[in-house]
């Protein structure tokens, strides 16, 4: 459960995120939808505490991210934009490293690694060094890494970037599985179809602000649009920035 309350962040004179508030409940997939440069990534980076908000705050399972960032991070798994692996380590070692840093170890960690490797279909590359991995392979390893400590909340920044059709399908299946397990899944995307296919809740952001929130159905009804795409365009008020 993630509750965001009036988050603001500026870089110099650029106001990247302004007064963003929304909540991402457990057992739901919440999509942050918006054109490029709308402030989606900055919002997620504030939530996983590599950036500090200028104003406002957020709670992860009730833990304030500004007051106790380490405790908040314990509750979340993160797939950052363009997540990088260590090229000299194997897929398994990459995942194990993050597991150890989350305090796992021994037989329990190895069992968890086996589980994730099976779940993300990494068996044929688990003992290969990450140096030559394709984008899709890298993303799958990074996803396994984000899930290694079995977090209640999962933050994914443009997760389907660079994934082929099969990879995208596997990713969606995984996200649905986490939803069924009662987890909170929050992901950002600028691809309308992806959000429409997956999300229970949509948060539309433009120019650093939240311009609309709700279920796909509610959004269509509120804007009087026939499709979600029309609703999106109506909500952000501009036709540019769509892909």
């Amino acid at each position, binding site marked *: 459960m993630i509750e965001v309350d009036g988050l603001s962040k500026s870089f110099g004179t650029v106001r990247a995120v302004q007064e963003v508030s929304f909540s991402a409940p457990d057992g739901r997939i919440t999509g942050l939808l918006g054109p490029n440069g709308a402030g989606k990534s900055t919002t997620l*980076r504030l939530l*996983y*505490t*590599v*950036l*500090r908000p200028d104003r406002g705050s957020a709670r992860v399972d009730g833990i304030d991210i500004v007051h106790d960032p*380490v*405790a908040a*991070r*314990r509750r*979340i798994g*993160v*797939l*950052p934009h*363009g*997540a*990088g*692996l*260590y*090229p*000299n*380590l194997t897929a398994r070692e990459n995942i194990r*490293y*993050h597991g*150890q*840093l*989350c*305090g796992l170890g021994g037989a329990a960690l190895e069992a968890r690694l086996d589980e994730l490797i099976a779940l993300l279909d990494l068996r044929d590359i688990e003992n290969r*060094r990450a140096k030559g991995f394709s984008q899709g392979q890298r993303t799958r390893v*990074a996803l396994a*890494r*984000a899930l290694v400590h079995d977090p209640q909340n999962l933050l994914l920044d443009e997760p389907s970037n660079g994934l082929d059709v099969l990879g995208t399908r596997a990713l969606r299946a995984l996200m649905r599985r986490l939803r069924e397990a009662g987890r909170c899944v929050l992901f950002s995307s600028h691809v309308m179809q992806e959000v429409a296919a997956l999300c229970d809740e949509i948060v539309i952001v433009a120019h650093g602000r939240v311009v609309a929130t709700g279920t796909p159905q509610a959004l269509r009804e509120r804007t009087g649009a026939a499709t979600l795409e029309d609703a999106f365009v109506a909500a952000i008020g501009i036709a540019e920035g769509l892909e």
Partner: protein
Amino acid sequence: MSRATLVVLAKEVKDNLRDRRTLMSAVLFGPLFGPVFFAIMVSIMLTRTAGQMDEPLELPVAGAEHAPNLVSWLEAQNVDVQPAPEDPQAAVRARRHDVVLVVSPDFAERFAGGEPAAVRIVADSADSRAARHSARARALIAAYGQQLAQLRVLARGLSPSLMSPIAIEEVDVATPAARSVLILGMMTYFILFAVLIGGMYLAADTTAGERDRGSLEPLLALPVGRRELVAGKLGATCAYMLASLAITLAAFTVSLRFVPFERLDMVANFGPAVAVRALLVMAPFVLFGASLLTVVASFTRSYKEAQTWLSLVLVVPTLPIAIASLYAFRPVAWMMLVPSLSQHLLITELIKGEPVPAALVVTSAASTVALGLGLAWLATRLYRREAILG
């Protein structure tokens, strides 16, 4: 040390062991370059110096027929008297000869008359290589003159000792080990260089490299404090630097055995016992160097930029030593406060084989560790900045 710190340390050590470039520079090229290069350089230098003392002096003499006694005396002093070139000054200027002796035509006449008989030594004082030869020619001729003067005094019935009102006797208190310090003092440059090279790639890889690869952001999103992460990364850098230090010291104990110090009446006092002490004296500098490299690398925007800056940092610790060698410092308390200088001076004393006061060693270690911890703290501060993500 926390568990997370150990996890980071172990991962960075393993990760970089798999990187051939790091391995080559940290445990092969860096530590072995100094001992091998130094031994070869010093051997050549010593062999040349020792050889030059025995080899005959080549001395073209113009007008040799005017002073046959002088010429035969010179030949008896291991001088190879050669026919002079047409124009002695032009020949020396063109470096065809190092030194030419010109005997004036009235030499015999003035000599017989008891007046100073003139000879001219043609040399180029700007040619440092030839300076030794012209000095040797000058000394020989002065000695010949002194010998003649004594004979003349004797011929007049006086004691030749009138010619030496003061007897100079030199007592050299330097031990063969201490004499070798002139040369071995340069060793600490190579040791410092090896230590820093050992950590350079890790410092760049664990900071700027991690950011370039995009693995820094997921790392910072883990439930681990920044201080623990930085401590692990510094620890790994220190481990490589210590390995590099140990290898370079061990290599020096081997390579110096092949240097012919005895030819100049010197002894290289750098056996295993001295090497172990040097390792202990140098160890505090490892933390200082690792923190310095990490701080500099954290400021840079990319791995490439980090490498450029770090290779400049390699020079910094040699500056206090270079300045100190201009003044030929002996170790005193305040110098023990300066990292690199204090280690240089203490290792120099170890090589001399002189007892090193414990107070100086403790001051050096304490001050270097304190400054190292200060830099480590600064590195942690830099990791807390948002700008660390680039």
